[in-house]
């Protein structure tokens, strides 16, 4: 079966439609969404309605959580101070326009989903705000996958897609317990994989195109997809609707301007 996995639509209805068309052409039979349906973009309600009407199993993203819980939910919702200032404007804008039933829907989204040996989550299994960057310490990355019990962990949140395979790991350990010194044992870590599916509506890989992932459960093949669409339409809507123009500028370039994490490993200790 072919599965399509999307994340970080961020109110970009044009991009979502383009991706839905692309995955249909590639005969994806099932769709998973890893959250961040709202924020930054001009059509948060329409995006949520589309996801709901297609019955797409969805996890809660960092933006979805913040819209529900209020920004005070986490002081460290933003990767940097500059991102925070802009993010706050977008938050207020979204907060004012979102329908009550959309808020209710976002509130009840689960933090992760499971299907067979696959796990789906927004940031990391423990936290929607954690960035699993491709250069993260390999042991820490492995822990994120192993903690779920799944073989492959699908995530988003960084807006840049990648596939990371972790293999041939070994940890030598010696245990002293109850006054006895144990033998040295070797723990071999199993092969695991992290698939970051990028971002549909707010890509940061250097081009404005929408990104998502196709996964074939039979062949175990992961395909990073990049889909062109009329992003100028979204850019125009961002400005028309009174959102900070920087979001249009950023979308047109696919840049992570001001969004580079000061401390990507930081986790909110709420």
């Amino acid at each position, binding site marked *: 079966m072919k599965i399509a996995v999307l994340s970080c639509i961020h109110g970009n209805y044009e991009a979502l439609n383009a991706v839905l068309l692309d995955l249909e052409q590639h005969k994806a039979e099932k769709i998973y969404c890893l959250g961040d349906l709202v924020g930054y973009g001009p059509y948060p309600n329409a995006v949520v309605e589309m996801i709901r009407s297609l019955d797409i199993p969805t996890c809660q993203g960092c933006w979805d959580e913040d819209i529900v819980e209020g920004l005070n939910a986490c002081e460290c919702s933003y990767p940097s101070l500059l991102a925070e200032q802009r993010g706050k404007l977008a938050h207020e804008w979204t907060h004012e326009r979102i329908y009550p039933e959309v808020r209710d829907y976002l509130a009840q989204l689960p933090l992760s989903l499971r299907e067979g040996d696959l796990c789906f989550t927004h940031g990391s299994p423990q936290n929607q705000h954690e960035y699993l960057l491709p250069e993260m310490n390999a*042991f820490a990355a492995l822990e994120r996958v192993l903690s779920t019990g799944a073989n492959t962990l699908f995530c988003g949140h960084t807006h840049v897609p990648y596939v990371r395979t972790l293999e041939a790991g070994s940890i030598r350990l010696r245990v002293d317990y109850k006054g006895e010194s144990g033998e040295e044992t070797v723990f071999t870590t199993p092969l695991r994989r992290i698939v970051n599916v990028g971002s549909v509506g707010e890509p940061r890989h250097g081009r404005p195109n929408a990104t998502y992932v196709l996964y074939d459960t039979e062949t175990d093949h992961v395909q990073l997809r990049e889909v062109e669409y009329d992003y100028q339409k979204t850019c125009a809507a961002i400005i028309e609707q009174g959102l900070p123009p920087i979001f249009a500028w950023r979308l047109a370039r696919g840049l992570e301007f001001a969004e580079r994490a000061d401390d990507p490993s930081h986790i909110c200790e709420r």
Partner: protein
Amino acid sequence: MWAILSGIEGNLTAYEAVLRDLKRQSVEIEALYILGDILGLQGPVEALLERLQSPQGGERTPQICAGFWEDQYLQMQGWGGGQPEAALSQYGSNVLMELEKRVPRSCLDWLRSLPFGFLELDCLLVHGSSVSVSDELSPQTPPWQLLDYLVRVEANFLFCGRLGQCFSVQLQNSQISSQVTTLDQPLIEQKATSSPRQIIGVGSVGRVSGLARYTLFYPTTGQIRCRTVEYAPNP
């Protein structure tokens, strides 16, 4: 040399026994850490708190962080934004009443001021894990999880107290291969290795009546000693 304690749980007699044992050590104690669970079900806390705050003749002032019981007590008093569910599920429905009886209200501010842990040299000192005071690390905890707790804070030693037992897990020469595929760059292959690291359970001073356990640590050599002190418990 550092003395690292945890889990006094209101047992002042046990704490006094440990202090006496520390005085008998030939090497100078440079730091005294208490990794939480000052509060607990083993005895009233008031006199213990006073003792902690007034070190006598050459004793080090203890550096104290929050533990499981402090966290649960604060939750119970409406701080921390949750319910003391862990205590209820692990110790039964009477536990809150029992705790309330032993803890003076006046120490609330002091409890709230306790740090989560200490990061000193290449050592992390906490009650539970680098993530939560309720995590109970033990020799049975999967090694990849233990390694992650250390990697998160870039420490080589993690001292913890939640299990209430002395133990040590040494993680040596860990390695792993990683391959990253992106849209644009060619395949990036990496081999990561991790220097030797160690998780140490420091024992519990007050949980077992008549038998106090704590840990001595030599930061310069990395040597670790679990001390067991027998004492006559209060009748």
